[in-house]
Protein backbone atom coordinates (compact mmCIF):
# COMPACT_ATOMS: atom_id res chain seq x y z
CA UNK A 1 0.00 0.00 0.00
CA UNK A 2 1.16 3.54 -0.76
CA UNK A 3 1.67 6.37 1.66
CA UNK A 4 -1.31 7.78 3.55
CA UNK A 5 -2.74 10.83 1.77
CA UNK A 6 -5.19 13.51 2.85
CA UNK A 7 -8.00 13.59 0.30
CA UNK A 8 -11.00 15.92 0.03
CA UNK A 9 -14.10 14.39 -1.54
CA UNK A 10 -16.38 17.21 -2.67
CA UNK A 11 -19.82 17.65 -4.18
CA UNK A 12 -19.74 20.91 -6.15
CA UNK A 13 -22.87 22.66 -7.33
CA UNK A 14 -26.56 21.88 -7.15
CA UNK A 15 -26.46 18.13 -7.02
CA UNK A 16 -28.03 15.97 -4.35
CA UNK A 17 -26.69 12.59 -5.45
CA UNK A 18 -24.09 11.71 -2.86
CA UNK A 19 -24.13 7.92 -2.82
CA UNK A 20 -21.17 7.69 -5.20
CA UNK A 21 -19.13 10.25 -3.27
CA UNK A 22 -19.79 8.43 0.00
CA UNK A 23 -18.84 5.06 -1.47
CA UNK A 24 -15.59 6.52 -2.83
CA UNK A 25 -14.87 8.24 0.51
CA UNK A 26 -15.37 4.94 2.29
CA UNK A 27 -13.18 3.03 -0.18
CA UNK A 28 -10.37 5.56 0.26
CA UNK A 29 -10.72 5.33 4.04
CA UNK A 30 -10.50 1.55 3.84
CA UNK A 31 -7.46 2.00 1.62
CA UNK A 32 -5.71 3.73 4.52
CA UNK A 33 -6.20 7.39 3.57
CA UNK A 34 -7.57 10.31 5.57
CA UNK A 35 -10.68 11.52 3.78
CA UNK A 36 -12.42 14.83 4.40
CA UNK A 37 -15.96 14.81 3.04
CA UNK A 38 -17.44 18.24 2.33
CA UNK A 39 -21.12 17.38 2.20
CA UNK A 40 -23.53 18.49 -0.52
CA UNK A 41 -23.87 21.60 -2.67
CA UNK A 42 -20.50 23.23 -2.16
CA UNK A 43 -19.29 26.20 -4.20
CA UNK A 44 -15.83 26.12 -5.80
CA UNK A 45 -14.68 28.71 -3.23
CA UNK A 46 -15.82 26.55 -0.32
CA UNK A 47 -14.06 23.53 -1.78
CA UNK A 48 -10.81 25.46 -2.21
CA UNK A 49 -11.00 26.68 1.40
CA UNK A 50 -11.45 23.10 2.58
CA UNK A 51 -8.47 21.89 0.52
CA UNK A 52 -6.34 24.71 1.95
CA UNK A 53 -7.34 24.36 5.61
CA UNK A 54 -7.15 20.58 5.59
CA UNK A 55 -3.86 20.53 3.67
CA UNK A 56 -5.18 17.90 1.27
CA UNK A 57 -2.97 16.59 -1.51
CA UNK A 58 -5.90 15.25 -3.57
CA UNK A 59 -9.38 16.52 -4.31
CA UNK A 60 -12.05 14.28 -5.81
CA UNK A 61 -15.04 16.00 -7.39
CA UNK A 62 -18.32 14.18 -7.83
CA UNK A 63 -20.97 15.52 -10.18
CA UNK A 64 -24.12 13.95 -11.59
CA UNK A 65 -25.95 17.14 -12.45
CA UNK A 66 -24.32 18.01 -15.77
CA UNK A 67 -22.53 21.11 -14.49
CA UNK A 68 -19.06 19.51 -14.55
CA UNK A 69 -17.95 21.47 -17.64
CA UNK A 70 -18.27 24.66 -15.64
CA UNK A 71 -17.40 23.54 -12.11
CA UNK A 72 -14.37 21.26 -12.58
CA UNK A 73 -12.27 23.77 -14.61
CA UNK A 74 -13.28 26.55 -12.22
CA UNK A 75 -11.98 24.56 -9.25
CA UNK A 76 -8.71 23.79 -11.08
CA UNK A 77 -8.31 27.47 -11.87
CA UNK A 78 -8.94 28.54 -8.26
CA UNK A 79 -6.46 25.96 -6.96
CA UNK A 80 -3.77 27.42 -9.23
CA UNK A 81 -4.73 30.96 -8.18
CA UNK A 82 -4.25 29.90 -4.54
CA UNK A 83 -0.82 28.48 -5.43
CA UNK A 84 -1.94 24.97 -4.64
CA UNK A 85 -0.12 23.74 -7.71
CA UNK A 86 0.77 20.35 -6.23
CA UNK A 87 -2.85 19.35 -5.51
CA UNK A 88 -4.08 16.52 -7.76
CA UNK A 89 -7.67 16.77 -9.04
CA UNK A 90 -9.80 13.80 -10.06
CA UNK A 91 -13.46 13.51 -10.88
CA UNK A 92 -16.34 11.10 -11.12
CA UNK A 93 -20.06 10.77 -11.63
CA UNK A 94 -21.88 11.13 -14.93
CA UNK A 95 -19.28 12.68 -17.23
CA UNK A 96 -19.93 12.00 -20.96
CA UNK A 97 -16.90 10.88 -22.99
CA UNK A 98 -17.22 13.94 -25.24
CA UNK A 99 -16.73 16.29 -22.29
CA UNK A 100 -13.61 14.59 -20.95
CA UNK A 101 -10.83 16.02 -23.16
CA UNK A 102 -11.64 19.58 -22.10
CA UNK A 103 -11.69 18.56 -18.44
CA UNK A 104 -8.29 16.87 -18.77
CA UNK A 105 -6.99 20.04 -20.44
CA UNK A 106 -8.19 22.10 -17.51
CA UNK A 107 -6.10 20.03 -15.08
CA UNK A 108 -8.25 17.04 -14.07
CA UNK A 109 -6.02 13.94 -13.91
CA UNK A 110 -8.57 11.12 -13.85
CA UNK A 111 -12.28 10.62 -14.42
CA UNK A 112 -14.00 7.59 -12.94
CA UNK A 113 -17.44 6.69 -14.24
CA UNK A 114 -20.05 4.24 -12.93
CA UNK A 115 -18.71 0.71 -12.56
CA UNK A 116 -15.14 1.72 -11.73
CA UNK A 117 -13.71 -0.71 -9.16
CA UNK A 118 -12.65 1.14 -6.01
CA UNK A 119 -9.25 -0.56 -6.28
CA UNK A 120 -8.64 1.40 -9.48
CA UNK A 121 -9.13 4.70 -7.66
CA UNK A 122 -6.68 3.55 -4.96
CA UNK A 123 -4.17 2.61 -7.65
CA UNK A 124 -4.55 6.05 -9.20
CA UNK A 125 -3.89 7.72 -5.82
CA UNK A 126 -0.76 5.63 -5.34
CA UNK A 127 0.60 6.28 -8.83
CA UNK A 128 -0.27 9.99 -8.84
CA UNK A 129 1.24 10.61 -5.41
CA UNK A 130 4.60 9.32 -6.63
CA UNK A 131 4.79 11.81 -9.50
CA UNK A 132 4.65 15.54 -10.04
CA UNK A 133 1.20 15.85 -11.62
CA UNK A 134 -0.53 18.55 -9.57
CA UNK A 135 -3.03 20.93 -11.06
CA UNK A 136 -0.31 23.55 -11.61
CA UNK A 137 2.29 21.24 -13.17
CA UNK A 138 3.00 21.05 -16.88
CA UNK A 139 2.82 17.28 -16.74
CA UNK A 140 0.16 16.18 -19.25
CA UNK A 141 0.07 12.61 -17.90
CA UNK A 142 -3.37 11.39 -17.03
CA UNK A 143 -4.84 8.16 -15.65
CA UNK A 144 -5.54 5.60 -18.37
CA UNK A 145 -2.84 6.86 -20.74
Amino acid at each position, binding site marked *: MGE*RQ*RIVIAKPGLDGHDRGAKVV*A*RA*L*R*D*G*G*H*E*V*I*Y*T*GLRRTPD*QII*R*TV*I*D*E*DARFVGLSSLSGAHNHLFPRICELLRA*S*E*LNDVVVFGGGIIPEADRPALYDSGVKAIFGPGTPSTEILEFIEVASSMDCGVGSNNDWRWGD
Partner: protein
Amino acid sequence: MNRVKLARSLSAIENGDMEVDDADGRIFAITGPPGVGKSCLIDSILHRLAPEFSVAVLAVDPTSPLSGGALLGDRIRLTVLDDKEKSDSIYFRSVATRSSIGSIPSVVKSLANFLVLEAFDLVIIETVGAGQSETRCAAVANRIIVVEGPARGDGIQAEKAGLLELADLIVVNKSDIDGAQRVVNDLKMSLSINQEPPPIITTSALTGDGINELVKMMLSLEERESSKRARCRQQLIMAHENTIVNNPNFEEVIDRISQEGLSIEEALRELID
Protein backbone atom coordinates in the same frame (compact mmCIF):
# COMPACT_ATOMS: atom_id res chain seq x y z
CA MET B 1 -2.98 34.79 8.04
CA ASN B 2 -1.37 32.73 5.30
CA ARG B 3 -3.67 29.71 5.36
CA VAL B 4 -1.65 27.54 3.02
CA LYS B 5 1.48 27.99 5.12
CA LEU B 6 -0.43 27.48 8.36
CA ALA B 7 -2.05 24.26 7.12
CA ARG B 8 1.24 22.87 5.85
CA SER B 9 2.99 23.66 9.14
CA LEU B 10 0.30 21.75 11.01
CA SER B 11 0.86 18.74 8.74
CA ALA B 12 4.59 18.91 9.43
CA ILE B 13 3.88 18.90 13.17
CA GLU B 14 1.43 16.02 12.78
CA ASN B 15 3.99 13.99 10.85
CA GLY B 16 6.67 14.64 13.47
CA ASP B 17 8.79 16.85 11.20
CA MET B 18 8.47 20.03 13.25
CA GLU B 19 8.76 20.85 16.95
CA VAL B 20 6.65 23.46 18.72
CA ASP B 21 7.37 25.48 21.84
CA ASP B 22 4.92 25.52 24.72
CA ALA B 23 2.43 28.34 24.56
CA ASP B 24 0.19 29.96 27.08
CA GLY B 25 -3.24 30.55 25.62
CA ARG B 26 -6.90 29.70 25.88
CA ILE B 27 -7.13 26.07 24.78
CA PHE B 28 -10.58 24.53 25.25
CA ALA B 29 -11.49 20.87 24.97
CA ILE B 30 -15.11 20.21 24.10
CA THR B 31 -15.81 16.63 24.99
CA GLY B 32 -18.70 14.31 25.72
CA PRO B 33 -20.44 11.19 24.45
CA PRO B 34 -21.04 10.58 20.73
CA GLY B 35 -24.11 12.27 19.28
CA VAL B 36 -24.59 14.72 22.12
CA GLY B 37 -24.15 17.67 19.76
CA LYS B 38 -20.50 18.72 20.10
CA SER B 39 -20.02 19.71 16.44
CA CYS B 40 -23.31 21.60 16.20
CA LEU B 41 -22.56 23.36 19.49
CA ILE B 42 -19.16 24.43 18.17
CA ASP B 43 -20.85 25.79 15.05
CA SER B 44 -23.21 27.86 17.23
CA ILE B 45 -20.30 29.11 19.34
CA LEU B 46 -18.30 30.13 16.26
CA HIS B 47 -21.29 32.06 14.90
CA ARG B 48 -21.11 34.24 18.03
CA LEU B 49 -17.32 34.49 18.39
CA ALA B 50 -16.41 35.36 14.79
CA PRO B 51 -15.43 37.77 13.42
CA GLU B 52 -14.66 39.58 16.70
CA PHE B 53 -12.39 36.77 17.88
CA SER B 54 -10.11 34.61 15.79
CA VAL B 55 -10.74 30.95 16.55
CA ALA B 56 -9.00 27.75 15.49
CA VAL B 57 -10.78 24.42 15.79
CA LEU B 58 -9.09 21.02 15.83
CA ALA B 59 -11.77 18.38 15.29
CA VAL B 60 -10.63 14.88 16.13
CA ASP B 61 -12.18 11.81 14.49
CA PRO B 62 -11.11 8.20 14.89
CA THR B 63 -8.63 6.38 12.66
CA SER B 64 -9.61 2.88 11.58
CA PRO B 65 -7.64 0.32 13.58
CA LEU B 66 -7.83 -1.99 10.55
CA SER B 67 -6.83 0.17 7.58
CA GLY B 68 -5.19 3.19 9.22
CA GLY B 69 -7.53 5.41 7.21
CA ALA B 70 -10.13 7.84 8.53
CA LEU B 71 -13.29 9.57 7.41
CA LEU B 72 -13.21 13.08 8.80
CA GLY B 73 -16.73 14.45 8.75
CA ASP B 74 -17.00 17.13 11.43
CA ARG B 75 -16.64 19.91 8.87
CA ILE B 76 -20.07 19.13 7.42
CA ARG B 77 -21.78 20.54 10.52
CA LEU B 78 -20.02 23.88 10.26
CA THR B 79 -22.48 26.30 8.64
CA VAL B 80 -20.40 29.21 9.94
CA LEU B 81 -17.76 28.46 7.32
CA ASP B 82 -20.30 29.43 4.62
CA ASP B 83 -20.56 32.93 6.07
CA LYS B 84 -17.97 35.07 4.32
CA GLU B 85 -17.96 37.74 7.05
CA LYS B 86 -17.02 35.18 9.68
CA SER B 87 -15.12 32.40 7.97
CA ASP B 88 -11.96 34.46 7.49
CA SER B 89 -11.37 34.59 11.24
CA ILE B 90 -11.89 30.85 11.64
CA TYR B 91 -9.45 28.06 10.93
CA PHE B 92 -10.96 24.58 11.00
CA ARG B 93 -8.85 21.45 10.76
CA SER B 94 -9.82 17.79 10.95
CA VAL B 95 -7.39 15.55 12.81
CA ALA B 96 -7.33 11.75 12.77
CA THR B 97 -6.34 9.91 15.96
CA ARG B 98 -3.78 7.83 13.97
CA SER B 99 -1.84 5.42 16.20
CA SER B 100 -2.70 7.04 19.51
CA ILE B 101 -4.91 5.55 22.19
CA GLY B 102 -7.98 7.38 23.43
CA SER B 103 -10.00 10.34 22.31
CA ILE B 104 -7.16 12.78 21.59
CA PRO B 105 -3.79 12.08 19.99
CA SER B 106 -0.95 13.69 21.93
CA VAL B 107 0.18 15.62 18.84
CA VAL B 108 -2.93 17.78 19.32
CA LYS B 109 -1.10 19.49 22.17
CA SER B 110 1.61 20.66 19.76
CA LEU B 111 -0.96 21.61 17.11
CA ALA B 112 -2.85 23.71 19.68
CA ASN B 113 0.35 25.37 20.92
CA PHE B 114 1.26 26.26 17.36
CA LEU B 115 -2.15 27.85 16.78
CA VAL B 116 -1.79 29.87 20.00
CA LEU B 117 1.60 31.09 18.78
CA GLU B 118 -0.04 32.00 15.45
CA ALA B 119 -2.12 34.46 17.50
CA PHE B 120 -5.52 32.79 17.54
CA ASP B 121 -7.57 34.20 20.43
CA LEU B 122 -9.09 30.82 21.21
CA VAL B 123 -8.26 27.26 20.25
CA ILE B 124 -11.07 24.71 20.50
CA ILE B 125 -10.39 20.98 20.44
CA GLU B 126 -13.34 18.76 19.65
CA THR B 127 -12.62 15.26 20.95
CA VAL B 128 -14.04 12.10 19.45
CA GLY B 129 -17.15 10.95 21.28
CA ALA B 130 -15.76 10.18 24.72
CA GLY B 131 -16.83 7.93 27.54
CA GLN B 132 -16.82 8.26 31.31
CA SER B 133 -13.20 7.42 31.89
CA GLU B 134 -11.86 9.52 29.06
CA THR B 135 -9.80 12.10 30.93
CA ARG B 136 -7.06 12.40 28.35
CA CYS B 137 -8.26 15.81 27.13
CA ALA B 138 -6.84 17.28 30.35
CA ALA B 139 -3.37 16.74 28.92
CA VAL B 140 -3.94 18.95 25.90
CA ALA B 141 -6.41 21.64 26.98
CA ASN B 142 -6.45 24.01 29.94
CA ARG B 143 -10.21 24.54 29.94
CA ILE B 144 -12.51 21.53 29.70
CA ILE B 145 -16.12 21.75 28.66
CA VAL B 146 -18.11 18.55 29.06
CA VAL B 147 -21.25 18.30 26.95
CA GLU B 148 -24.08 16.13 28.18
CA GLY B 149 -27.59 15.56 26.90
CA PRO B 150 -31.00 14.39 28.05
CA ALA B 151 -32.04 10.74 28.35
CA ARG B 152 -28.56 9.38 28.93
CA GLY B 153 -29.22 7.41 32.07
CA ASP B 154 -30.45 7.92 35.60
CA GLY B 155 -29.05 10.02 38.44
CA ILE B 156 -26.40 7.43 39.32
CA GLN B 157 -24.60 8.22 36.06
CA ALA B 158 -23.99 11.71 37.43
CA GLU B 159 -22.50 10.26 40.62
CA LYS B 160 -19.81 8.27 38.87
CA ALA B 161 -16.21 9.40 38.97
CA GLY B 162 -14.27 10.35 35.85
CA LEU B 163 -14.57 12.94 33.14
CA LEU B 164 -17.19 15.07 34.94
CA GLU B 165 -14.79 15.76 37.80
CA LEU B 166 -12.35 17.47 35.48
CA ALA B 167 -14.95 19.69 33.84
CA ASP B 168 -14.50 23.44 34.15
CA LEU B 169 -17.93 23.94 32.66
CA ILE B 170 -20.75 21.49 32.01
CA VAL B 171 -23.17 22.06 29.18
CA VAL B 172 -26.42 20.12 28.95
CA ASN B 173 -27.25 20.42 25.26
CA LYS B 174 -30.53 19.65 23.48
CA SER B 175 -32.54 21.66 26.02
CA ASP B 176 -35.35 21.59 23.46
CA ILE B 177 -35.85 17.90 24.28
CA ASP B 178 -37.70 16.76 27.41
CA GLY B 179 -35.53 15.64 30.28
CA ALA B 180 -32.70 18.18 29.94
CA GLN B 181 -33.63 19.92 33.19
CA ARG B 182 -33.65 16.61 35.01
CA VAL B 183 -30.07 15.95 33.86
CA VAL B 184 -29.10 19.37 35.18
CA ASN B 185 -30.70 18.60 38.54
CA ASP B 186 -28.94 15.23 38.79
CA LEU B 187 -25.58 16.79 37.93
CA LYS B 188 -26.07 19.67 40.38
CA MET B 189 -27.00 17.29 43.15
CA SER B 190 -23.95 15.14 42.52
CA LEU B 191 -21.43 17.96 42.10
CA SER B 192 -22.73 20.06 45.01
CA ILE B 193 -20.58 17.93 47.33
CA ASN B 194 -17.42 19.12 45.54
CA GLN B 195 -15.32 22.03 46.79
CA GLU B 196 -15.74 24.20 43.71
CA PRO B 197 -18.44 22.68 41.54
CA PRO B 198 -18.24 23.76 37.88
CA PRO B 199 -21.08 25.84 36.50
CA ILE B 200 -23.77 23.94 34.62
CA ILE B 201 -25.79 25.52 31.82
CA THR B 202 -28.35 24.29 29.33
CA THR B 203 -28.15 25.02 25.62
CA SER B 204 -29.85 24.06 22.42
CA ALA B 205 -27.71 24.20 19.30
CA LEU B 206 -31.00 23.79 17.41
CA THR B 207 -32.92 26.79 18.79
CA GLY B 208 -29.95 28.88 19.95
CA ASP B 209 -31.16 28.78 23.55
CA GLY B 210 -28.33 29.43 26.02
CA ILE B 211 -25.61 29.87 23.40
CA ASN B 212 -24.92 33.54 24.18
CA GLU B 213 -24.53 32.67 27.84
CA LEU B 214 -22.22 29.76 27.00
CA VAL B 215 -19.98 32.01 24.89
CA LYS B 216 -19.85 34.58 27.68
CA MET B 217 -18.86 31.92 30.20
CA MET B 218 -16.21 30.51 27.86
CA LEU B 219 -14.58 33.90 27.49
CA SER B 220 -14.39 34.44 31.25
CA LEU B 221 -13.38 30.87 32.10
CA GLU B 222 -10.05 30.73 33.94
CA GLU B 223 -7.66 27.84 34.33
CA ARG B 224 -8.51 26.03 37.53
CA GLU B 225 -5.73 25.40 40.02
CA SER B 226 -7.49 22.32 41.35
CA SER B 227 -7.28 20.61 37.94
CA LYS B 228 -3.60 21.39 37.49
CA ARG B 229 -2.37 18.24 39.13
CA ALA B 230 -4.73 16.09 37.06
CA ARG B 231 -3.47 17.82 33.95
CA CYS B 232 0.14 17.09 34.82
CA ARG B 233 -0.74 13.47 35.51
CA GLN B 234 -2.33 13.08 32.07
CA GLN B 235 0.61 14.78 30.39
CA LEU B 236 3.04 12.44 32.08
CA ILE B 237 1.07 9.34 31.08
CA MET B 238 0.71 10.60 27.54
CA ALA B 239 4.44 11.29 27.24
CA HIS B 240 5.19 7.79 28.49
CA GLU B 241 2.81 6.27 25.97
CA ASN B 242 4.44 8.32 23.22
CA THR B 243 7.88 6.94 23.92
CA ILE B 244 6.44 3.47 23.41
CA VAL B 245 4.22 4.12 20.39
CA ASN B 246 6.77 6.30 18.59
CA ASN B 247 9.63 3.85 19.06
CA PRO B 248 10.66 2.79 15.53
CA ASN B 249 10.68 -0.85 16.67
CA PHE B 250 7.10 -0.69 18.00
CA GLU B 251 5.47 -2.78 15.24
CA GLU B 252 8.34 -5.25 15.15
CA VAL B 253 8.12 -5.77 18.91
CA ILE B 254 4.38 -6.47 18.60
CA ASP B 255 5.16 -9.10 15.98
CA ARG B 256 7.65 -10.71 18.30
CA ILE B 257 5.15 -10.76 21.17
CA SER B 258 2.50 -12.38 19.01
CA GLN B 259 4.73 -14.76 17.06
CA GLU B 260 7.82 -15.49 19.13
CA GLY B 261 6.40 -15.40 22.61
CA LEU B 262 8.31 -12.31 23.76
CA SER B 263 6.90 -11.36 27.17
CA ILE B 264 5.18 -8.01 27.71
CA GLU B 265 7.72 -7.08 30.41
CA GLU B 266 10.65 -7.74 28.09
CA ALA B 267 8.93 -5.84 25.28
CA LEU B 268 8.41 -2.82 27.53
CA ARG B 269 12.05 -2.84 28.59
CA GLU B 270 13.12 -2.88 24.95
CA LEU B 271 10.81 -0.06 23.93
CA ILE B 272 11.54 2.29 26.81
CA ASP B 273 15.33 2.01 26.97
